[in-house]
């Protein structure tokens, strides 16, 4: 039975990568029989590279992905260097959950409200320093929102990925035994900053490889965030490809598919770059690690305070906007308030909310069941799918696989949109749920199950009465991760739903490009609160299972793996 279920899992969550990639590659070469294109050609690629500004777009994508990811890495290291094993660290751990639960889209909208040319940041500067904005062109003020150099996108992505990297660093640093390293290095005459730079950084950075690859792949392929705060002329390459996919002229689909293949190549190149850079810094030029007592003291506490303040300003700011009837620039607060926009949008929100919740709950539950099957199978049978294969959906650009999956659906039955959307959500949520459970499942003492079996209980009884209760907090947390990942899906919902399925995320992104901040704020609040709701539920369950909590948290934190953190591909 377990073997059969495992085969089902492979069919649903692993194999679709093949038709996904194959479909997009064939389409890139002009072979799309369902729309009457059956001759192979390179015209798709030539269209891509003939596009005005394509190289600038590719350059923007590569540099914004690299800079934002390494900036996030640097900020994370600064915070760890200053705060690990101090009283600050306890505060950071408490704040990590709400920071992680905030979806990228809601964060981006909040970021735009803060830093847009007429955002609260500029208003505050005006009110505090009386800076005369009338001498500036509004576009010149767009330093961090839709700016041509993607600075806003870089800063936003960097800030949003810091909590994820911090969470990833917890098991890494626990394995490294930082306290002992500090003791022995102090005895050798190194101060704390020097110990972190010379001894801990090389070991931490090596182990952070997979999270770094995941955030780089995400930064390369992100569409929703780039639509909200990224550059527009040209946009980042993923957005450009997405625009090509939306071209009403179907004969141009090979161009979009070729773009998706190029995006995949860019992501692969950047992954190779990350590996090379890591080798150069840590192995190729190793001399700095033993050359003597030097090291940078980074302002980690200030950086974390800044990140937290920004994140916690966003929600009240969005709430303020959602009730603003009249908020003229450069006023700091609205001059008139109204519930009108909530009333207008309420019915629509309730419907979208319901649809989002149903899809998320169904997909998270399915992903959880599949992850449980995968872990149980891995523990019983030696031959199983390795973790890095399961993690592939996290490392390849969504656009590069979704189009092929959509083509595949055309051959089966294309009009069951809800089914295909749910399938795509499960496909992308499953790796996160699986990896969230990896640590707890590995740390579970199999001896407990053997004891139950030796007492005459059936394997199923032992699983439900011994193993599951012990791992229940981790299971609920993984489920919340699945819900959160599903809620954040933008491209899978649009592509496989063919625009017929709307969720809070698709609505929030669509509205963010409009001009009514009040409506955008309402959807952004909803998008931010939904995952928080599920994480709170999971935490509540964890709390009520206090006696098991220690084991499950230990399991979650001590294993080096992708975490319980939902990233939002």
């Amino acid at each position, binding site marked *: 039975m377990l073997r059969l279920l495992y085969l089902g899992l492979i069919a649903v969550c692993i194999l679709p990568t093949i038709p996904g990639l194959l479909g997009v590659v064939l389409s890139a070469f002009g072979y799309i029989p369902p729309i009457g294109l059956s001759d192979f050609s390179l015209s798709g690629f030539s269209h891509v590279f003939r596009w005005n500004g394509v190289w600038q777009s590719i350059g923007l994508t590569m540099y914004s992905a690299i800079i934002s990811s390494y900036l996030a890495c640097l900020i994370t290291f600064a915070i760890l260097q200053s705060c690990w094993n101090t009283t600050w660290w306890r505060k950071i751990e408490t704040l990590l959950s709400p920071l992680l639960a905030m979806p990228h889209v809601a964060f981006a909208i909040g970021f735009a409200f803060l830093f847009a040319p007429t955002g609260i940041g500029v208003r505050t500067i005006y009110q505090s320093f009386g800076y005369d904005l009338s001498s500036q062109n509004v576009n010149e003020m767009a330093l961090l929102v839709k700016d041509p150099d993607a600075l806003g996108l870089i800063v936003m992505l960097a800030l949003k990925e810091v909590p994820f990297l911090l969470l990833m660093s917890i098991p890494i640093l626990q394995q490294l035994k930082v306290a002992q*390293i*500090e*003791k*022995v290095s102090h*005895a050798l005459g190194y*101060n*704390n900053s020097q110990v972190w730079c010379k001894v801990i950084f090389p070991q931490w950075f090596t182990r952070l490889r997979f999270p770094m690859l995941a955030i780089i792949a995400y930064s390369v392929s992100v569409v929703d965030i780039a639509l909200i705060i990224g550059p527009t002329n040209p946009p980042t390459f993923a957005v450009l490809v997405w625009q090509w996919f939306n071209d009403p002229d179907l004969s141009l689909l090979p161009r979009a598919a070729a773009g998706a293949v190029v995006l995949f190549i860019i992501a692969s190149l950047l992954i190779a770059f990350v590996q090379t850079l890591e080798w150069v810094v840590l192995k190729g030029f190793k001399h700095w690690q033993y050359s003597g007592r030097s090291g940078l003291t980074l302002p980690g506490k200030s950086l974390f305070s800044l990140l937290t303040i920004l994140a916690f300003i966003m929600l009240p700011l969005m709430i303020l906007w959602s009730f603003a009837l009249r908020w003229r620039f450069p006023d700091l607060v609205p001059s008139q308030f109204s519930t009108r926009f909530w009333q207008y949008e309420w019915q629509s929100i309730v419907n979208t909310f319901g649809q989002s919740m149903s899809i998320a709950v169904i997909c998270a539950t399915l992903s959880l069941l599949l992850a449980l099957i995968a872990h149980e199978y891995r523990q019983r049978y030696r031959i199983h799918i390795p973790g890095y294969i399961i993690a592939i959906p996290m490392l390849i650009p969504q656009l590069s696989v979704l189009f092929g999956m959509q083509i595949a659906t055309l051959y089966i039955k294309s009009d069951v949109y809800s089914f295909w959307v749910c399938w795509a959500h499960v496909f992308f949520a499953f790796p996160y749920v699986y990896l969230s459970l990896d640590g707890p499942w590995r740390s579970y003492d199999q001896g407990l199950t053997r004891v139950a079996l030796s007492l005459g209980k059936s394997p199923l009884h032992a699983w439900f009465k011994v193993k599951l209760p012990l791992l229940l907090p981790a299971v609920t947390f993984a489920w919340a991760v699945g819900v959160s990942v599903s809620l954040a899906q933008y491209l899978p919902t649009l592509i496989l739903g063919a625009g017929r399925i709307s969720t809070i995320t698709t609505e929030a992104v669509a509205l963010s490009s409009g001009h009514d901040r009040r409506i955008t704020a309402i959807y952004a609040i909803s998008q931010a609160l939904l995952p928080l709701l599920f994480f709170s539920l999971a935490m509540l369950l964890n709390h009520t299972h206090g006696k098991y909590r220690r084991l499950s948290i230990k399991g979650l934190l001590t294993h080096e793996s992708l975490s319980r953190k939902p990233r939002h591909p």
Partner: protein
Amino acid sequence: MSLCLENLVIRKKNGDILLTDFNLTVYKGEIVTLMGPSGCGKSTLLDTIAGHLSQEFTYSGTISLEQNQMDQLPAHLRQVGILFQDDLLFPHLTIWENLAFALPDTIKGNERKITAMEALKHISLSNLANSFPEQISGGQRARIALTRMLLAKPKAALLDEPYSKLDKELRAQFRSLVVEQLKQANIPVLMVTHDKEDIPSGSRCINWPWENDNA
């Protein structure tokens, strides 16, 4: 050159006293052993001297080295070497790089490698220079950890049950190497252990409960 502890009192945060009014002087070239059962505060005393006392404890009294008070000095400026139960070699550095890491900053560039290689030759482990710690035996790692500690030129050394993780045969060999090397370094050495066999012959030993030592 001596390590002096005067009127040292170590308390837990809840007020319980771990060590009361303890006085001890360890002279240059001398190895003093403090014996005591598990949990009596041996390692906490060493942490206090090295500047690593955890926040669960507080202390009063004076710790001085070469008549300079160390109480206010951060751990990395105390110049007190420590040898732990575990070798704590850095796994990402090769053996010679581990040694080069400890060298004073006055030694620069390629000199660091040359000095590290000489130190390895001195303990007859030159062939392991490019190995990583995980590739060598426990006994070899212990010798390298000792050499690394001494290469940093400490003005005193603390040994926290340094032989407890070695097997019986290795333990005997390593004990004589430690004593020989520390005598050569001619610095005050304070060792804590619960194994009588660890006490170097002819050296001073203070048994639990530790009496004040005014020698």
